[in-house]
């Protein structure tokens, strides 16, 4: 389902439809995240991907062109590169430990400590929140600063009033 949506994204040329379809794609992936037990992630993906990202894409489209020019330029070469890389990746998955097995190495290093001790140490049931805000507080601080910086960047780029003639600064 997700793959079908993604492939449709690759085929489409109407950017308006692409923006809508990327919203649907985010929603479908959010459903998949719920099935994989990542409720917090699904929540974020649904609100960010399907909500805000679509609005941003659409408002950019309102400012620019809404249709892609169909130029089948070097598509074949790109396809060959992609197929080779994809084959290498799938070959690589053979070495990955099987899906959903509790004995996988990822479940043995830090996670058991979080799962077992965080209810006593932090005292809140949602482990994702306690790791996010407490154990990994530095990461989240840095990440908040990243968003802060992105906002400043966007404001610097398009926050002011539009220039009267865009050709002026080329001279």
């Amino acid at each position, binding site marked *: 389902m*997700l*793959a079908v949506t*993604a*492939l449709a*994204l*690759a085929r489409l040329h109407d*950017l308006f439809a*692409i923006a809508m379809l*990327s919203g649907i*794609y985010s929603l479908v*992936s959010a459903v998949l*995240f719920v099935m*994989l*037990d*990542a*409720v*917090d*992630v699904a929540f*974020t*993906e649904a609100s960010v*991907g399907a909500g805000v*990202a679509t609005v*941003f*894409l659409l408002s*950019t489209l309102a*400012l*620019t*062109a809404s249709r*892609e*020019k169909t*130029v089948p330029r070097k*598509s074949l070469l*790109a*396809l060959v*590169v*992609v197929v080779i890389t*994809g084959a290498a990746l799938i070959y690589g*998955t053979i070495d990955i430990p099987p*899906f*959903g*097995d*509790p004995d*996988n190495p*990822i*479940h043995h290093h830090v*996670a058991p400590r*979080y*799962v077992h001790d965080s*209810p006593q140490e932090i005292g809140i049931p949602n*482990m*994702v929140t306690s790791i*996010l805000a407490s154990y990994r507080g530095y990461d*989240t601080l840095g*990440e908040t600063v990243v968003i802060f910086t*992105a*906002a400043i*960047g966007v404001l610097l*780029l*398009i926050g002011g009033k539009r220039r009267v003639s*865009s050709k002026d600064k080329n001279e």
Partner: protein
Amino acid sequence: MSIVGHYNYWIVAVLMMTGFYIVIASNNLIKRLVGLSVFQTSVFLLYISMGKIGGGTAPIVAAGVKHYSNPLPHVLILTAIVVGIATLALGLALVVRIHETYGTIEEDEIHAQDEEEAL
């Protein structure tokens, strides 16, 4: 076991390559950004798939539950999604400025205009 056990990772590879194809094959800057976010989602899916434990449940403490899925990848991806939207917004802002300066968002037309100016 081998087929079922790796199905998720294959989907990840397919999605990743779809995003990659969009990024390298399309000329349009907005479509490239969308491709980039498809690529991003595939990485999210890879992490979340790794964190899943069969028979486990969401990592929220509840009575009578033995196995929780690994919460650590969830945290990493949670922050990655928000950083992703921030970078997407920044990229779109750049696209808007490029459109204002060049009047187009097709990459080859931008290159053509640059070469004309250089001559």
